[in-house]
């Protein structure tokens, strides 16, 4: 793991055009080059170069790939991933042939779907009658028993079926049972009349008719339902039978998309191809060898160090071990760090877990979080196609850490599902909150807890400041490093403020300290802060910046100074006090557990246990969520605001396995 963002190098290469295909394949296979357009590097050279439109538009390739994906999904087949891509199979796409295959498959599926619709309508019609029989709503049905004296029974059966009705013969008789809906009686009556329907006078048979036709209705319904399901399966089978072909088409289209994406960065002379892109320094040698090999040595490769390019143009690659992935996601979610700055992931991890642990300290509840995470992970591993639920894949990763953190802090504070099963390693949090702070311990009341979290906040803020100083030093921004509100000067003012604040508290909120060094330090610091504006202007002019008159510069400097002072005094104060929320939530957690314990003690036996369990569940869900969110907030606002500019451009190499390449 790099403590800083990965060092980058800019590659510019020229290869012979006849070898460019092989070079594309090599680069695609490596997937480490973040391409840049040549015109961005040297617009003056562009007159000598040409660009070529690809023979097939990338959007056409994408559209067709989406068609393939839709068909696969219709067959409930998982869309292939980059795993199926092999650059050796990169061939020209046969779009017409692909289109024909997809059109044919679509037409077949639509035809099956039309049949399924018909089956469904039959099911619906039969279900309606079944429902009326089941719900004893015979008034909606028209049930008759009688003889057909004219025409063929098959013809009548067919015509009655057009109304969604049934016509069945009564065994061993020449009688028939007709079942239709009463609302259709106006049309059924003339029909039956046409076939010379003679109603039977057998009352017993009339009464039995419903149970006789019910069976038939059930059979018809089951048959229609089976048919509908059979078609549903047939749809899946039809797609499945073409899976190999669809996968091959998908892979071809995807490879061509990626290849076209790479080629879109290429510039050409009559015989050569020119391209450029960023590569992490540790990959430079591999890339160079790959190009040399693919071009059979007929190439020119030039490397430019990132220091020769404006920092804001260098893409930022951050490498963190997989184990830190949940915290890397938190950083990425915020923004991309600046090139060359500290990779904040490990610091975020430590700060986040400490904050969470302080707010949600309980061995038992931490164990529950851990178990939920492990079960969730197991579930997703067992069923890779399962969609992310409320506890997503990413959250299960994070919950493992949160569970462990809660358990460690729980052991320190002696809390096991809110019970003090074992003595606290550090101090008994709940006892302190309840006003029974242990003798001899440094933490005896809630004020001590508040003080503890404020001190923790000070450590976090100072860590942020130190990281900022390191970043500024690496950037050679010495003016900011020394005289900025987040620079050394800011650190001194913050330290002085802290000294005064703690002394004020120690005096019982009576007086501020009167040490002789305080006033001069404050005065010098504020003066330095004021001259920063003038120095910044001087440096800017020296570097060719715009000149302004003295009045404007003075006004700017004073205004900036005034705002900086406000920000330093209010910002640092509020940032520090903001950490009291850690104590707040920790106290709320302990108080809630105390309340549930007392509630459960009021109810004997099983009821008490239920209250205790429900209380724990409620606390795990609500407090767990609040603690997680508050920890994130403290990291983003209090910690990141000290050093994280988020001005970086993310490194997005084009390759088979880079998901980002699809978005370009």
């Amino acid at each position, binding site marked *: 793991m790099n403590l800083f963002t990965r060092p980058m190098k800019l590659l510019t290469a020229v290869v012979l055009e006849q070898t460019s295909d092989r070079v594309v394949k090599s680069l695609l296979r490596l997937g480490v080059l973040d391409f840049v357009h040549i015109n961005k590097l040297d617009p003056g050279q562009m007159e000598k170069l040409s660009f070529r439109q690809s023979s097939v538009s990338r959007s056409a390739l994408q559209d067709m790939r989406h068609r393939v994906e*839709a068909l696969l999904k219709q067959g409930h087949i998982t869309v292939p991933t980059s795993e199926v891509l092999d650059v050796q199979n990169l061939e020209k796409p046969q779009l017409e042939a692909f289109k024909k295959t997809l059109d044919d498959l679509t037409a077949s599926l639509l035809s099956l*779907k039309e049949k399924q619709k018909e089956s*469904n*309508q039959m099911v619906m019609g039969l279900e309606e009658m079944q429902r009326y029989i089941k719900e004893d709503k015979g008034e909606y049905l028209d049930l008759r028993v009688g003889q057909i004296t004219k025409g063929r029974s098959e013809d009548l059966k067919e015509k009655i079926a057009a109304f969604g009705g049934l016509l069945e013969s009564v065994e061993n008789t020449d009688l028939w049972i007709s079942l239709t809906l009463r609302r259709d009686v106006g049309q059924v009556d003339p029909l039956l009349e046409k076939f010379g329907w003679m109603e039977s006078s057998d009352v017993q048979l009339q009464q039995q008719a419903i149970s006789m036709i019910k069976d038939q209705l059930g059979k018809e319904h089951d048959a229609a339902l089976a048919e*509908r399901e059979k078609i549903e399966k047939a749809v899946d089978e039809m797609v499945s039978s073409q899976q190999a072909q669809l996968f091959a088409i998908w892979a071809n289209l995807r490879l061509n998309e990626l290849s076209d994406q790479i080629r879109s960065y290429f510039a050409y002379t009559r015989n050569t191809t020119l391209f450029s892109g960023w590569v992490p320094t540790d990959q430079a040698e591999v890339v160079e060898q790959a190009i040399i090999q693919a071009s059979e040595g007929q190439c020119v490769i030039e490397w430019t160090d990132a220091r020769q390019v404006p920092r804001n143009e260098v893409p930022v690659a951050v490498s963190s071990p997989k184990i830190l992935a949940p915290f890397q996601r938190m950083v990425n979610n915020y923004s991309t760090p600046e090139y060359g700055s500290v990779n904040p992931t490990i610091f975020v991890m430590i700060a986040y877990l400490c904050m969470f642990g302080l707010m949600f300290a309980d061995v038992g509840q931490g164990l529950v979080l851990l178990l939920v995470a492990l079960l969730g992970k197991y579930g997703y591993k067992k069923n890779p196609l399962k969609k992310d639920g409320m506890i997503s894949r990413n959250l299960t990763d994070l919950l493992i850490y949160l569970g462990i953190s809660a358990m460690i802090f729980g052991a320190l504070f002696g809390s096991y599902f809110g019970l003090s099963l074992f003595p606290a390693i550090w101090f008994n949090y709940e006892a302190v909150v309840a006003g029974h702070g242990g003798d001899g311990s440094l933490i005896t009341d809630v004020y001590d807890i508040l003080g503890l979290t404020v001190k923790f906040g000070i450590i976090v803020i100072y860590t942020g400041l130190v990281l900022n100083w390191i970043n500024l030093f690496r950037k050679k921004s010495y003016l900011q490093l020394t005289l900025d509100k987040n620079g050394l000067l800011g650190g001194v003012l913050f330290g002085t403020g802290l000294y005064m604040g703690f002394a004020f508290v120690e005096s019982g909120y009576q007086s501020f300290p009167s040490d002789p060094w305080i006033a001069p330090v404050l005065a010098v610091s504020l003066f330095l802060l004021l001259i920063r504006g003038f120095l910044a202007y001087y440096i800017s002019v020296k570097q060719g910046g715009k000149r302004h008159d003295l009045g404007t510069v003075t006004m700017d400097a004073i205004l900036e100074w005034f705002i900086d002072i406000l920000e330093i005094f209010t910002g640092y104060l509020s940032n520090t006090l903001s950490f009291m929320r850690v104590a707040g939530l920790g106290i709320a957690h302990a108080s809630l557990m105390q309340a549930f314990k007392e509630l459960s003690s009021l109810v004997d036996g099983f009821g008490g246990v239920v209250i205790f369990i429900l209380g724990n569940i409620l606390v795990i869900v609500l407090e767990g969520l609040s603690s997680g969110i508050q920890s994130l907030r403290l990291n983003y606002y209090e910690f990141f605001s000290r050093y994280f500019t988020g001005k970086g451009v993310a490194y997005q190499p084009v390759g088979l396995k880079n998901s980002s390449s699809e978005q370009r």
Partner: protein
Amino acid sequence: MSSDRVSLYGFINAKLRAKIGLMRQSKVIENLLHASSLVEAVGVLRDSKYHAVAEAYDRTGDLQQMELVLLGMEISMYKEVARYLEGSSADLINHLLEKIEIDNLKNTLRLWYSSIMRQRPIRHRSEYLFKEIILYPIDWTALINATSWDVVGESLKDSPYHATVTAFSEQDLQQSGLFPLETALDRMWYVHLMDCVKTLKKADEEVATSMFLLEIDLRNLIMLVRYGWYHHMDADAVKKLLLPWGKVASSKETEAYLRQNASERNPHSIINRYYPGLEQETVPLHRESTNYDEASLLETLKIEGYLAERRKAIYQRMLAQDPFTIGLSLSYFFLFKEETSMVKAILNGKYYGYEEAYIRGVLV
């Protein structure tokens, strides 16, 4: 007052804004249009909030079953928002839901009319109706199975629609069809709507009144175009269709428009009077074309599309205004309804094999 509004709308507005944000980010409509067949369009729905619609297609292959799922989603959405509100604001949302119930009632009555009055078998089609309780305890099963008009009225006895429906006799329906009844139901809904708006708190009342008067103006304009121009209906009949609120119904321009001979009316002038910008050049061209009916229909669709665009712009503008009023909820309903209508229209277009460009043309 101010803190009440914040506590009443704070949560639901945050929730709806998040949903609107997702709706705007979503490319469902664009991807649906782009799909080259119904199977592929369903593929688009699979990974969206409409996945239940895709599942209905997998299970049944039936487009109307998919529409039924969409209707269910729409009803749930209204109920969800109403649950988070209280008092007159919740009543208004429920009243808006009543419009869906009335539309469902109209569909049911159409089917019933087809079956009993026109003696056409409706077979399974009654199963495409939404039969659960939407707002009032209507016995939908009894209604669709009614063999007489009295039974229809009986099935609606516990709903506010009973009086309106039973004001028409079986003979009225035989003579004039369902159109007057449907118009009466719509009018009844608007009358109740305006009453409901009056019970809102002042800020809400102002927002809701302005939005609904605009709705009414647009609806009246559509009536003037559809029936006064396209169907050449006489002035008195068109007047009866107009809702008596808003600027359009009582304006001099409307009077003048209706005074004209039905074949000489020009809808552009009256629309441009209220919403300037509607292009006029296609009317004479179409009127002279050989397929007059189709040309007029397309022109009517174009005008209706234009008015729908204006409505959309106004609702979207509402999103930038005072967040602690009923306005945001109304905008959300509009956007949601618009999206589901588009989904329905596109799925139908794909089912019948229309090209993307044609569907786009009809949607605008």
